[in-house]
């Protein structure tokens, strides 16, 4: 077993200390950061994601693996930035203005990072202009919005409208999700996609990035 596949295996097991140790050792040994990211961390998270989709493991198992992924990323990120390693795309995410619930949004962010995306997490209570400004500044191709309240869902429409008003609809796609949100609502407000949960959000965003 190579050190890279060892990293992937330990990530699957949620062994964060071991992943940190292995990534550190691999960097010292001169293994390219890109290989550690793609064949170690992302590959491990892909296995975990598939196990979760097949209902072989539970969400906290995925999150333990994510903790291990972060342990490796903490060491890798400074080197990846300098190495010009391309990501799967940049996604701006946040819970919309007035909404302080962020567990679902956090899960989407974790899954996206695990799939190799660069994530700009704006947190919660995010006003429409901040979503669009952040997307424009970071070169994001997708804005992901979360709402857990029926009272905050209309903010999603404001964000979609603002993207269009600024002439960015061709370059920035929008996706919405959250307990009260539905595919019909997404269509109604003109969003490009709707995601039922964090796992499907990654698939939808992959598709949105691919058709750009």
């Amino acid at each position: 077993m190579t050190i890279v596949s060892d990293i992937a295996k330990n990530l699957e097991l949620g062994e964060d200390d071991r992943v940190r140790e292995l990534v550190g050792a691999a960097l010292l040994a001169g293994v390219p950061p890109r290989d550690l990211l793609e064949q170690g961390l992302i590959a491990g998270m892909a296995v975990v994601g598939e196990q979760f989709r097949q209902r072989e493991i539970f969400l906290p198992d995925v999150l333990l693996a994510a903790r291990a992924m972060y342990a490796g990323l903490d060491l890798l990120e400074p080197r990846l930035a300098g190495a010009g390693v391309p990501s799967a795309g940049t996604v701006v995410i946040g819970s919309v203005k007035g909404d302080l619930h962020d567990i679902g949004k956090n899960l989407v962010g974790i899954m996206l990072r695990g799939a190799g995306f660069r994530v700009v997490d704006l947190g919660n209570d995010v006003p429409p202009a901040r979503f669009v400004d952040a997307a424009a500044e970071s070169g994001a191709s997708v804005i992901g919005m979360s709402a857990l309240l029926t009272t905050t869902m209309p903010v999603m429409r404001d964000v979609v409208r603002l993207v269009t008003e600024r002439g960015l609809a061709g370059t920035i796609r929008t996706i919405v999700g959250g307990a009260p949100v539905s595919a019909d609502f997404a269509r109604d407000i003109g969003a490009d996609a709707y995601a039922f949960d964090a796992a499907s959000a990654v698939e939808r965003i992959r598709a949105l990035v691919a058709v750009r």
Partner: protein
Amino acid sequence: MRWHLTWPAPMSLPPRETLLEAQDLPGEGELTPRLGRLIEDGVREYLTLATPCAVMEDITPAAFRSVLRGEGRNLGPLPLEQVLARAEGLALYVATIGPAVPAAISRWFADRDPARGYTLDGIASAAADGLSLLVTREWTVRRFGGCAPGWCALPYSPGYCGWDVSGQQALFAALEPAETGVRLNESCLMQPLKSVSGVLVYAPAAAHRTRQDYPCCDTCLTHECEGRVELMVQGMNMDGGGAGSGMCR
């Protein structure tokens, strides 16, 4: 009458099987050791940080009708109105597990330990749900000396079954629950998170079993109220202490 209630944290902790169910985890026998440890850590942290409290106050039917009307956005007529027609007592309430647990959840996520954050969040959500039942129990005992045979008090909340969530504004204006530290933001969201609010309704148990043909039933995605009400009616008719237990003689 108005009451300010506080409980020791363990009183608000739901049974372990409820915590597992709340996180879609399997039963005790099938739980892996690492998930078991995660739950244990979360429970320990919850018990250290939670400061559950509530305020509840009787309200007349006439005053409550105004609260229920709120900003006029209800998808009425409402099932709750059917229950109110046979109610003998009403009280508004707000309850919370306090600010420290939600803050800790945010910290876990910020510190890149989502497993701990998610687990504590699940425990906190289940505990907050259980607070409604604790409040109901306390109110029934204090107000009626326990429920009479065939009678039962249940909590109803804005945001459910056609009662628009904007009704929170009227509820908070009527109750003014400053003792709890809970406040509303402009989206009618209670802060700190993991707080609950609503009206307690003491009525014949049969009155709580409402019809399923209201306008709100057409748009409901879950249709789980029937089973939930039945479970709560049964729960309220059991003796014992702790979240989810009842108060009946």
